[in-house]
């Protein structure tokens, strides 16, 4: 089926004239119309904009203008990335009806690469969550089992890619928000080195941790998409200005001679046996393929989650202060500026956002700063040192992406701490600013996908993709979700 092919394959067919960009778009839109009622992956489908972009892509190709590997490919954007003229809400009531006057840098780059933007995908409000249940516009569901969540916060992007209503999608990853939903939906999800993909136009959650990256159906597609969106951006002061690696060129290099470290701390209590056995089978596979496998201890990983839940909310408490009802978005009623702002925020933010804003405000308060935020920053430095030490001995680190497979919708909604534990394997890479990728490696007995995480040092994308590609080949994961189609 056309909606199931990879970007690489679709690109070949486009260039032989076998299919057009409009055909690819039709396939994605057709797929969306059959699955959205159950999945709710999208908040907005921009049919007109996508149609026009596909026609332009087709016309360009006919005229011999080729914008590269994403030319004519239908992709989706998480709804926390600004799209000029298309509603962007970050799944929050406070931004209901907000239409950005400008494109995020990634949006611009996708357009310049000839991609066709299908629409905006659902997320946990302001990317705060691990299940996409914290969306003001309704939960997204997992195509492998629609009683379960697709993970989060980029759950909409993950579900869309898994089900074929987009050939790839962008997500944002602050503590695992690309990799964890990729793992739970059986797709590839990758968080690049901090600073390599511009954050300009990404509605900020935690600025020092946020990073945009691709979700795709293959490791190669992830590399292709990454190479289209990354690069130095003068509009982002934290953007990396040096030379960028070229991971797509190293995919077939294999793992022979590489040293792979298995993180000791990311196993044991709380990890589902099916996840652990799939991961250890893959580790054996890498070993058989010629990699040297060693166990590595990074003791600070045990306190990474605590540090993350101080740093991220602290930054968020300031990042979300701009939503005050004065210039845009929802406005509450109030006779004074103070009540207007307070009501705007009380009405506009959902409970998880309010919880984190309060947590962050508290952590930054006079008298508590040193004990909370200051201490968390020290832990962050210690984690970075732990990584540096580990990478003296190994090329990459591996672990499960998530301790569990997709959980039932509603199961963790009333237990924030259980929800927060979903990101235990992914958070350290955010705190260090390092790249990491999740690759689907199999299904458990309930037919739910299991993800395998490969981590690498900063700007180590080439070797990371090299290992990820080997993992993909070893896993030979070809299953697709069987979703009972409901005509909408």
């Amino acid at each position, binding site marked *: 089926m056309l909606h199931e092919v990879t970007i690489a394959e679709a690109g070949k067919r486009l260039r032989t004239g076998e299919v057009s960009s409009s055909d690819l778009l039709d396939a994605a839109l057709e797929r969306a119309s059959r699955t959205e009622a159950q999945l709710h992956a999208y908040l907005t489908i921009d049919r007109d904009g996508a149609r026009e972009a596909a026609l332009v892509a087709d016309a360009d190709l006919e005229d011999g203008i080729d914008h590269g590997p994403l030319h004519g490919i239908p992709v989706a954007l998480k709804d926390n990335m600004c799209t000029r003229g298309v509603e962007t809400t970050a799944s929050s009531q406070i931004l209901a009806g907000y239409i*950005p006057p400008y494109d*995020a840098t990634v949006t611009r780059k996708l357009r310049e690469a000839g991609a066709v933007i299908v629409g905006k995908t659902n997320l946990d409000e302001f990317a705060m969550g691990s299940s996409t249940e914290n969306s003001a516009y309704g939960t997204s569901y997992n195509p492998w089992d629609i009683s379960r969540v697709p993970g989060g916060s980029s759950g909409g992007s993950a579900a869309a890619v898994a089900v074929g209503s987009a050939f790839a999608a962008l997500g944002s990853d602050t503590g695992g928000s690309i990799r964890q939903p990729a793992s739970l939906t059986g797709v590839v999800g990758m968080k690049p080195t901090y600073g390599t993909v511009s954050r300009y136009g990404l509605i900020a959650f935690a600025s020092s941790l946020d990073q945009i990256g691709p979700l795709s159906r293959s490791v190669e597609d992830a590399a292709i998409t990454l190479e289209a969106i990354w690069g130095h951006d003068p509009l982002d002061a934290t953007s990396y200005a040096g030379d960028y690696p070229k991971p797509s060129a190293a995919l077939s290099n294999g793992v022979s001679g590489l040293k792979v470290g298995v993180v000791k701390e990311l196993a044991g209590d709380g990890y589902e046996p099916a996840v652990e056995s799939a991961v250890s089978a893959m580790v054996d596979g890498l070993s058989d393929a010629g990699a040297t496998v060693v166990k590595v201890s990074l003791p600070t990983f045990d306190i990474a989650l605590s540090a993350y839940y101080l740093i991220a909310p*602290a930054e968020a408490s*300031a990042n979300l202060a701009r939503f005050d009802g004065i210039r845009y978005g929802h406005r509450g009623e109030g006779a004074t500026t103070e009540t207007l702002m307070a009501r705007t925020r009380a009405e506009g933010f959902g409970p998880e956002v309010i919880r984190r804003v309060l947590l962050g405000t508290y952590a*930054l308060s006079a008298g508590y700063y040193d004990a909370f935020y200051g201490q968390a920053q020290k832990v962050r430095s210690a984690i970075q040192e732990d990584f540096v030490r580990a990478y003296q001995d190994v090329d990459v680190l591996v672990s499960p992406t998530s301790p569990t497979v997709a959980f039932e919708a509603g199961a963790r909604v009333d237990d924030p701490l259980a929800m927060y534990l979903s990101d235990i394997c992914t958070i350290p890479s955010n705190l260090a600013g390092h790249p990491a990728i999740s690759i689907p490696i199999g299904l458990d007995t309930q037919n739910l996908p299991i993800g395998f995480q490969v981590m690498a040092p900063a700007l180590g994308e080439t070797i990371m993709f090299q290992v990820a590609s080997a993992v993909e080949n070893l896993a030979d994961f070809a299953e697709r979700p069987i979703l009972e189609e409901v005509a909408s």
Partner: protein
Amino acid sequence: MTWESVIGIEVHVELSTESKMFCGCAVDFGVEPNTNVCPVCLGLPGALPVPNRRAIEWIMLIGLALNCEVTERSVFHRKNYFYADLPKGYQISQFDIPVCHDGYLDVTVDAETRRIRIERAHMEEDTGKSTHVGHGGRIHAAESTLLDFNRSGVPLVEIVSRPDIRGAAEARAYAQGLRAVIVELGVSDARLEEGSIRFDANVSIRAVGDEVLGTKVEVKNMNSFRSLERAVDYEIERQIAVVETGGELTQETRHWDEEAGVTQSMRTKEGSSDYRYFTEPDLVPMVMSAPWVDEIKQGLPELPANRRDRYSKAGLDADLAGVLSSSPAEIRAVYETATTAGANHRRAANWMVGEVTAWLRRTGTDPAELPLDGPQLAELVEIVDEGHVSSSAAKEVLEGVLSGEGQPRDVAKARDLIQISDVSALDEIVAGVLADNPEAVDSYAAGEQKVIGFLVGQVMRESQGKADPKLVNQLLREKLS
């Protein structure tokens, strides 16, 4: 008991860079509200700040001019608070690692010079502007508030002094001296009435001899040097009165009411506000390398205080040196060129701060448009020194030059203002006057020296004022001896 005041001053300077601190919008207030705005300075979702290199160079320049150290690695912080004209809900500012620290400015009051230490100069961004409509423009009971974000994100430098200032006159002198430095650097319009330079004073009192600082009161809303001096003076007296009548001072912010001539308590907040400062994660630390600092240092112009010293050494008295050194650059440039060409310093300076400045004011001419150059001033001074033109006639010559009539000598000729310095031409007039005034000649012979003045006057009258009085005097004495 004898009291002394302890005063620290915080100065906010709006830099006149071409673009704002963190975006490309123009710094320009003469336009329609909300036209110099973009996603960044409006705080739209997803927008990110990128620092203005020129602004950072200018704060370094300010710091160096105020004898500060430039920090090698300086960090931006977020200062969090909610206000309608603060678009992001935080101001990008600096907290514990400002760009500049530990400088000083020397100020002179009543011929006594004291060194006021400067704690820090840091970089931040301005807020938008609120205009409250209805009920006299006050926020309480205003019918509505208009917001203009043209000012949002304009680079601001905050300069904080140590509490080294004593008395209102010194507060004023510090503020004026600091403004003079800013003006000299050309980094701000530095107009008090427009708020492009703003002064807040922290005032406390203590018994003379006490080491401990008293309760500090912040006084705001002074938009002239005079009101700064009045406000500080009032506040000192108010605090003394409170303490001497057994009252207790509260730490608070007070508003200067220019019309009533009093400071008034602003709504006091419960406790002190907590700005929850933390490192701005959207920006990386600024690194001010030694070569960069050196480069900026090379660009430092001569500062007013140094210039005053130089003028004094060249022979100007203290007042004249002071007035000239704070005169507009165009005025000083004419003086500098003329004196370099050999003109007498004192006379050249007198022309510039006297007649020339008066002419500019009278005609409403901008100093930049001054139609007088250095060589012309030198020539004007020279023709007076040479005796070709009298001092009073020289004013007419200047008038002519400024009106575009030509070079001073030509104007003097054309306006018939050249003194008669030719002995043969004067001889005849002198002889005539002596013949007409035998009594005066007799009186002189009898020892009444002062009668010579009368005779000089007669010669001047006969020559219609064109005779060189010095020469006439000399000739008369020769003839009478």
